[in-house]
Every structure is written in structure tokens, then in C-alpha cells.
């Protein structure tokens, strides 16, 4: 990635580049975690019968960060996949959080507020209930 001559100044273009890289690596990393968890899951449970015809909802330990990371259930492979998916969901959130900082560095007060609103909606959805 090429940096501009004015290395310190954070131009829109530079912000876009950093965000693009953030998203790309976020997706690659989460896909890798999901793939590892998926292989583990298939080896362990591949021969069993799937249960998706009627909606029951996932068990509690797969519904929030705390349960996914530290739950004591024996379904560790399912929790690993869910953790990878959570990383994927976090990449756009990280992108918005990064934008708050970028707009703050540009002293763009309007867009710091705009971005903070978006970030709070995202955090409410992920953690607020």
C-alpha cells in the first residue's frame, strides 16, 4: 500500500485504503476460524441427522458473546464456528469505530456525531438486549 507524500495527513483516500484492508483481513481471519470449526463439527457430528425443519432457536450459549467464548457446553466446535461468525459481524462494526477516529483526526465534528450514532445503533443491536 502506497502512502501519500504528506505521511501524517489522514486523507479520505488513505482512510478508505485502511478500511479496505481492515475489512479484507477481518473476512479472511473469520473465514479461517469458521472453516476450522466447520471441519471439527463435521468430523464430530457429520453422521447425525440435521434438525432445521422447525424453528426452535439456538441454545442460550450460542446467542451471546459471553456464552460463545466461555460457555461450558461440550459443543465446542459449534462455539468455535459461532465465534468466527461473530468476528465477521464485528468487521463492519470495527470499520465504523475506525471511522469515528478518522473523522475526529480530520476535526470533522458533524461526521464524528453521524458515525457515533451509527456505532451506537450497532452496539445496541449486538450488546443491548
Amino acid at each position: 500500500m502506497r502512502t501519500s507524500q504528506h505521511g501524517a495527513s489522514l486523507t479520505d483516500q488513505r482512510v478508505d485504503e485502511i478500511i479496505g484492508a481492515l475489512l479484507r483481513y477481518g473476512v479472511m481471519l473469520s473465514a479461517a476460524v469458521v472453516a476450522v470449526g466447520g471441519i471439527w463439527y463435521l468430523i464430530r457430528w457429520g453422521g447425525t441427522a440435521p434438525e432445521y425443519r422447525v424453528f426452535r432457536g439456538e441454545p442460550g450459549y450460542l446467542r451471546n458473546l459471553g456464552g460463545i467464548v466461555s460457555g461450558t457446553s461440550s459443543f465446542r466446535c459449534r462455539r468455535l464456528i459461532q465465534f468466527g461468525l461473530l468476528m465477521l459481524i464485528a468487521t463492519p462494526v470495527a470499520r465504523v469505530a475506525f471511522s469515528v477516529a478518522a473523522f475526529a483526526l480530520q476535526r470533522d465534528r458533524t461526521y464524528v456525531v453521524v458515525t457515533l450514532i451509527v456505532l451506537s445503533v450497532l452496539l445496541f443491536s449486538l450488546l443491548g438486549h
Partner: protein
Amino acid sequence: MSDGREPFAVSKAARYPRYLGRVNVLELTGLVGLISVAGGFLGALTGLGGGVVLTPAMVLLLGIDIHYAIGATLVSVIATSSGAAAAYVREGFSNIRIGMFLEIATTVGAVCGAFAAAWISPSVLAVVFGIVLMQAAIASARGRPKPRPGEKDDPLARWLRFNGSFPTPEGERHYKVSGVKTGFSLMFAAGALSGLLGIGSGAMKVIAMDRAMRIPFKVSTTTSNFMIGVTAAASAGVYLSRGYIDPGLTMPVMLGVLTGSVAGARLLPGAATQKLRLIFGLVVAVLAVEMIYNGVTGGLR
């Protein structure tokens, strides 16, 4: 399980191949993975996104409950949006200010839609999904509209510093943005549909920016793609806490769509897109009719 009910509903149940009764987890993962690769591939080639065919395919072909299907598809929407955004950003087309401002509307809409999805029965969801599919089919068959650069200057757009430029072979082209309020309202609707149905609703986002706000088409599509991931993340939190996201089902969908869309994006410059869009439009139309029919006749129960 619905085993107790099925003997009394043979005619309805018989319409569905009973794959889920016969296959094991490994085979179902393979089937879902294959459908997802194909969906991601076609979605990238036609610019419609993979989500729009995946949910009906899982519901109609594999008999998976629509809530599980929309949960799995929604997550794959984030993967394709973030994966493609990196490529678009390098070309310098997307307008981050427009995207961020409109994301206020799409994320609030998405959270509302995701909460609403829990209260709405699978039949109604299927009918709404079918109508959205029908619209997508028409859009796909029609092809891309001609770009119409904005000339009028909206004071709100000036205050929000929306007006920008993008590179063309003839040098930088400047554009002005109008209809900010209309665009913002349409974005709320796009977000609500995304949260309700677990799709990216990119087509509606492009319509809001291209038609209502008169943003150049290339800037609209890339900014829309950039926004899709954030919109989807807003409903993903609600989906996760409601238990819609099943790791075993989402795993092949996410990995498959990602593989398919990366392959599709690589192939894009050389593809005969016009013919492909027509074929894809037909497939989507068939799925739309099936979804509406099954929703109305209660076949998804």
C-alpha cells in the same frame, strides 16, 4: 418435530423433497455449500448479491425453516460486502460521507426489521420475500439503468459535504447530490427489508442513491456495497440473540457464498452479463412465485 402432523398433510409435504429426513449433517452441509457457491457466483456476476436466491433455495428445496435460512444468509451478506468493499475502495468510487450518513437510516431500519421478523409468521415472511424477489427479477432482466448525474444542488447535501468526484478515463468527474430527505427515507425502508428478510437489499439502496439522490451509478453501487455490511451487522446482533444463527448451517453458507462471489468477481470482466442477467432473472422469478404460492397456501408450516 412435525412428524406427528405430516401424515395429515401429505399433499403439502409431498411438494418438498424430504432431503432433511434422509440426509445426515455431512450431506446437508455439502448440499447447502454447493447451493451457496452457485448463489454467490451468480450474485457477483449479476450484481444482485447471493442472498436473494439462497433463502428461497434453502426453504423450498431443502425444507429448512425460513428463520434459520435468513439467519444464515444474513451472515453471508456481511462476508460478500466486506470482501468486495476492499476491491471497490481501491478504485476510489465510494463516498464514505454519503454512506455513513445514510447508514443512520439503514441500521435503525435493520434493527426494526430484525425485531419484526420474530413476530411475523413464516407464511407472511415468504410472501414479502416473494414480492421482493419479483422486483429483483424485473431489475435483473432490465439491466442497468443509464447513469444520470445530479445537477441540482440540495442545501442539505452541501451542508453534509456530499458532493464529490470520482476518477474516469477523462479525468476527475465532479457530481452534486440532491433529494437527501427522500434518499434517507428510502434507506430506512431498505434497512427494514434487510433486517426482516436477511438480505443485503443492495438493489433498493442503489435505487435510493441513483434515482432519488442522483448520485452517479458507479458511486451508488460501490457506496451501497460498502453500506450493506454495516446494515447487515445491525440486524445480525438481533438475529444472534434471537437464536436465528445456527453455526452448523451458517458455516457452509458463509464459506460457499464467499468462495462463489470471489470467483464471480474475478470472472466479471469477461462474462456475458446481459444474457446471464436474463437467465438469473427467470430463476429469481420462479423462486418468487414459489415463495408467494407457498406462503399463501401455508405450505411452509
